[in-house]
């Protein structure tokens, strides 16, 4: 039996956005459901490894009211591939340059299918250098076992980080 999704055979949506700013747009489908798209609707999460450790960043998350330790991630720009998005975000947040040719795809995810149209790619990457620039307090290399444990016991709740780490572990990639 298949667990694959099946695409709706429904009519086109043709309603103007009910709300939009630089970050999100919302529209109603013609059955009345609200669809929300963050950014372009695509993004990437980077699981960057070096010498048994994984690159983590801490950022203020105003939606949850907390500083959260997470894998670097970001929304894709128009016409940008997932690998390019990951490389740009990692470089921007940490100064670390990833080796784009080392990429291993860990599949895609929908953070919240009830609400968000977004689809995000999970990528495992090696580095070309390991220089950590910017604020060291908010960038660190974390031991793989420590990170796996944190994703398992709920210390890390972020779905993007948990998805990438747990898929990589169950694939025996980390």
């Amino acid at each position, binding site marked *: 039996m298949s*667990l694959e999704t099946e*695409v709706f055979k429904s009519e086109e949506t043709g309603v103007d956005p009910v*709300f939009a700013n630089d970050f999100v747009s919302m529209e109603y489908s013609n059955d009345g459901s609200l669809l929300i798209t*963050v950014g372009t609707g695509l993004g990437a999460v980077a699981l960057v490894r070096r010498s048994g450790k994984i690159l983590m960043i801490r950022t203020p*998350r105003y939606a949850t009211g907390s500083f959260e*330790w997470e894998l670097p991630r970001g929304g894709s720009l128009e016409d940008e591939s997932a690998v390019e998005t990951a490389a740009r975000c990692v470089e921007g947040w940490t100064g670390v340059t990833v080796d784009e040719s080392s990429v291993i795809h860990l599949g895609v995810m929908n953070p919240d299918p009830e609400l968000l149209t977004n689809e995000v790619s999970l990528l495992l990457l090696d580095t070309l250098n390991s220089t950590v620039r910017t604020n060291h307090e908010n960038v660190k290399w974390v031991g793989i076992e420590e990170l796996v444990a944190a*994703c398992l016991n*709920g210390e890390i709740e972020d779905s993007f980080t948990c998805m990438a780490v747990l898929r990589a572990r169950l694939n025996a990639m980390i």
Partner: protein
Amino acid sequence: MSHLIPTPIVDVNGKQTTVYKKMDTASGTASDLIPHLGVKPAVSDLRATPIQEDNSNEGTGVVFANRYLKIDMVPSRFGAFTTIKNGSGGGAAVLVLREGKVLMVRQPRYALGENTWELPRGGSKEGEDYSAAALRELKEETGEEGNIEGLVSLGNIQPDTGILNTEAGLFMSTINTNSGEAYDVEGEIDNLRWVDADELVDACIDGTIKDSFTCVAVMRARLKGLI
């Protein structure tokens, strides 16, 4: 014989939650099913911490609201920051296990334009803890609360910390009867399936299933040796 007893604790993030301890009726002793849940990690320091900074840039408040959600522009160091509050912000997904199979429901997800297979999931009412939402989902989808041993916490999930305030509890429940057929209150039995646990784990790993709630609950349960 043993049974599970709910025990309120403060979890590693300082939040009130409930864990389920296994009570051995012969010896009268209770033991943690997931011992580390209530214990502060010795080495790791990856926990979230509250934002306590002076956000001098004002927010602009709620700019959109309907009966389900609202968009609230909150103050941040970057200026007014877009956040979405969906319902109460809380909820639960529950992994129901029976004889090595896991209950999956097919949902029309209009945001994706797809019917997707997911674990049963629902929102919390205002002020209600996540386990209550999990128990309600269980009752709705299986109709057999009397045969449910209890809930085991698989930790919480935040689906998108960049924009959603949502946090949900992930739980597992084992049905120990062989009579418990999937029960669908809507009569849409095609939309419920008991899926072999190994097949489900593979689907979560290879990306066939993309829903973060389902994947994180299933992968945590597998790595903890629960399925």
